[in-house]
């Protein structure tokens, strides 16, 4: 019984759709909470897949179940039109209604949402996305970042059971992105509804997602929990220049004298120079393969602070013939390292080798 209840809570989708020169044949499952990122290069069908979920694109055949509701099932002739699906959609361009001021834009979906559907109040949404000062402005006068915050608030206020975002930050510069990303994480936590997030930016994905669906040429290559997926060498993500893992950690102690903070995770600890962190706070780290080097012994004479004993689990060719990508097990936590084939040969490292992983840089995903 527990098993089937769990299945019911899942979002399950399968779509088949053919355009000239492009076919989408995607089947996926995702958990009914957390952020699921649909990740892949431009033109792989990410947006089309999302539009199919929203019902904006009609797949020739497919089905879609969202938490015990069937939104589409062509074998039974079911297709719920978009306006009857309880979803929120944030487009890449903010797409605010230019004839309505910000307040009326927000009210548009809010007033049309079924009563009792809102997981988060009007007031809290305005506060979280910091749009209170914009309510009486017209969309034309807003900056790109402000527009997108309003668009996100509008989608949230429509009382969705599923929030979808199609590269919502792609049109913004790096600074605006940093301004919005933390809002998104907080929003998801407070709303507690599943979020489908389309992106081709691995950093955004690493920061936000809990679950990853990898799309290539209209097909789902793999899907699973983010940390597991990013550590897999058989997936195209491992070949990326920015390949790397994410690790969920907790702030364990502070080293006031050296202005460092110690973060603990299953099987290890890392020091980071970020004094603003609070004891006990959960922090996600991202460690890129290019920032991890390997040694056979622990280098006590090295300036590198973060060193972990680890075992080589898997070795694969990297994006460049000179390099190899190595998957390590550091006390239960997976790490990736990109090293030269020459080093592997000289150090005679192979599967099962005991090594020391030296981490040169750690990115905090706040």
């Amino acid at each position, binding site marked *: 019984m527990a098993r089937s209840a769990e299945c019911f809570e899942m979002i399950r989708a399968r779509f088949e759709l053919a355009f000239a020169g492009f076919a989408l044949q995607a089947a996926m499952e995702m958990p009914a909470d957390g952020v699921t990122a649909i990740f892949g290069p431009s033109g792989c069908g990410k947006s089309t897949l999302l539009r199919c979920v929203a019902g904006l694109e009609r797949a020739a055949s497919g089905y879609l179940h969202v938490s015990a509701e069937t939104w589409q099932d062509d074998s039974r002739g079911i297709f719920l039109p978009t306006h009857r699906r309880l979803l929120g959609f944030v487009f890449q361009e903010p*797409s605010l209604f*230019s004839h309505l001021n910000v307040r009326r834009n927000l009210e548009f*979906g809010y007033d049309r949402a079924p009563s009792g559907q809102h997981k988060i109040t009007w007031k809290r949404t305005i506060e979280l996305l910091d749009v209170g000062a914009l309510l009486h402005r017209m969309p034309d006068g807003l900056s790109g970042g402000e527009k997108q915050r309003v668009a996100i608030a509008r989608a949230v206020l*429509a009382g969705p059971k599923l929030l979808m975002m199609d590269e919502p930050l792609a049109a913004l510069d790096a600074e605006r992105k940093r301004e919005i990303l933390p809002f998104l994480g907080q929003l998801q936590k407070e709303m507690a509804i599943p979020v489908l997030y389309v992106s081709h930016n691995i950093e955004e994905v690493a920061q936000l997602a809990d679950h990853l669906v990898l799309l290539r040429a209209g097909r789902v290559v793999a899907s699973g929990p983010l940390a597991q997926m990013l550590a897999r060498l058989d997936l195209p993500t491992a070949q990326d220049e920015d390949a790397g893992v994410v690790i969920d950690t907790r702030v364990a102690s502070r080293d006031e004298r050296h202005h460092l903070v110690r973060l603990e995770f299953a099987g290890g600890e890392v020091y980071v120079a970020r004094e603003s962190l609070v004891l006990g706070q959960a922090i996600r780290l991202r460690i890129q393969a290019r920032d991890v080097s390997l040694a056979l012994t622990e280098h006590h004479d090295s300036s590198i602070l973060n060193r972990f004993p680890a075992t080589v689990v898997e070795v694969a060719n990297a994006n460049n013939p000179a390099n190899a990508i190595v998957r390590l097990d550091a006390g239960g936590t997976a790490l990736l390292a990109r090293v030269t084939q020459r080093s592997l040969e000289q150090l005679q490292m192979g599967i099962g080798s005991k090594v020391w992983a030296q981490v040169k840089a750690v990115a905090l995903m706040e």
Partner: protein
Amino acid sequence: MVITPDDWSAIRVTLALASVVTVLLLLLGTPIAWWLAHSKSRWRGPISALITLPLVLPPTVLGFYLLIALGSSGPLGRLTQALGLGLLPFHFSGLVFASVLYSMPFVVQPIRNSFEAAGKRPLEVAACLHARPLDAFFRVALPLARPGLLIGAILGFAHTLGEFGVVLMIGGNIPGETRVLSMQIYNHVEALEYAQAHWLAGGLLIASFFVLLAIYLYGPKRRMF
């Protein structure tokens, strides 16, 4: 005052005609413009061409065919008789019918341009915010097309004011019923009453100029014509 009671009667007929036609054209032209802007049907091209025909056709040609079609042995004439409406030619209602067709492209085109400029995105957004299609049409698509609706209404009104050829063919020259301003000007000129012709022609000229000036001063940035 040089403007005669006959002139005033022609002015009244003309204004009544232009007003009725403009209202009808907005009601009819908006759904047609919507269909032309969003349909993927293969009939889109032929229908577009048909609606645009009055733009290039001599008004007498349109008037001639309408006269035949609306006449007692024409298909539309039989229909109006069967419906108990009688025959439309040489009546105000016949002028309305003909003018609606004649001014159609001037109304449909700007509205269609506005719908096309707004694109599908606002409607998709509205659907994602739970708006039913009709709700989305009235609350999003129409307000966004307001510049096109305004221009369409003005052009439709102005174009109907200046109508001559079609009226001549289908409406004749019946005072108080089908004698419009352009017809009255023609009558004055025929009778060598140039002073009276000047009053009406000059008035029409100045009115038309200011209507167009208003469009160019206050209208949208995108020009339709």
